[in-house]
């Protein structure tokens, strides 16, 4: 078991706070750093797709918890998950 990023799409309102808050996302994309969503899929950790959060590259996650803090509805969490290599 390890601690990893888990999403709850059924809770998600699609606000995109986590996408913008994620320091990995903002480091990778100037659009995200500026507070806008990414223009194309540039290796984001997570993205809002069709109004709902989707994990794109969970392996890039730094497990810092910034997205967890930014989510108003607890739809993204750091939790115990099965280890995947």
């Amino acid at each position, binding site marked *: *078991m390890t*601690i990893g990023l888990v999403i709850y799409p059924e809770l998600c309102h699609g606000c995109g706070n986590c996408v913008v*808050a994620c*320091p*990995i996302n*903002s*480091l990778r994309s100037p659009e995200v*750093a500026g507070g806008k969503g990414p223009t194309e899929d540039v290796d984001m950790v997570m993205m809002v797709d069709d109004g709902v959060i989707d994990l794109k590259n969970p392996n890039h*996650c*730094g*497990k*810092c*918890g*910034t997205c*967890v*803090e930014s989510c108003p509805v607890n739809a993204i*969490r*750091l939790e*115990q998950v099965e280890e995947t290599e």
Partner: protein
Amino acid sequence: MMEKTEMIGDKDISVERTGAEARKLNFKNELCGSCGICEKICPVDAIEVNPTGAMVRTEQESSKLEIDENKCVLCGMCSCICPYDALDLEIKGKTIKESDEYPHLLKSSEIDEDKCIYCKACETACPPGAITIARELPDRSKLVSGEIEIDKETCIKCGVCEEMCPAEAIELDYKFPTSDDPTIASNINIDKDKCVYCLVCKKACPVDAIKGVCRLCSYGDYDIKAEDAEIKGSSDINEEVCVNCGWCKDICPVEGIKVTKPFEGTVDINQESCQGCETCVMACPCNAISFPETEEMGGISEKIHIDEKYCIYCGACEKACPVDAIDVKRTKIHSTPVKSKSWEKAFESIKN
């Protein structure tokens, strides 16, 4: 017969091996700073530190680190190097931190009781709350001198003085007026133990019923005894909880605190990579990291600032940073002599 067991009580962990030389490794979750030095030094990779950001920012059920009891050889390296004393190896019931055979970190924080004025600045600043200052203040009535009197005949019991008295020394006994006694209070009293002779009541009284004088204002404090003004107290640093960050030493107005930090080193921040996510600020057990304010409106400052005055170079921030923007280097370890070659090598390995 030898047996190894692992017990997890709450979030503390202990790994135990029974036999001729019983060994027990205790981990106290509350003390752990998630710095990862133990993970680095462990010769058998038995320790895994859980993601620092996840541990400090989100609620987690797991401990800050995991110890694999099948791998742990109970050597005690982690116990000797942990700057937060969260790990402790006992051999035959005795902690190796008190044994001369094992090296230990030279770190300490001490308050000089002769210098301490019990101002409580250190108690307030201490990041882990390790300091307790107990103080006994002087008797206020012994630090003032004067006379005060209410002419009860003149007094109309309006209660203005009672309402204004900053020391709450005046009290009226209110009652309902009757035709027999058409007043609103039966009595008025000044508590001389509480009165500080500020004479606000005298000035405020609408009928000039109060006479008073402050002797200190008129003649100085000649009749106040120096010993009556003395603040007594005691100070205590909880050694187990203390992280030796130096906040107390820095904030002490009388230079009454001595701190020895366990490591020397450097910290570098890549201001370009930093995205200001605050994970390091929350992870730092020493409160050494902050968001700086700009010098002028609209100015650009560093994204984060690490004050090395308070840093012990544990590396928790580096471990917590999701974008690898922090580089902590340890250049020197303050410890008692390391006697074995292999331990020396291991200690060297946590320098970088």
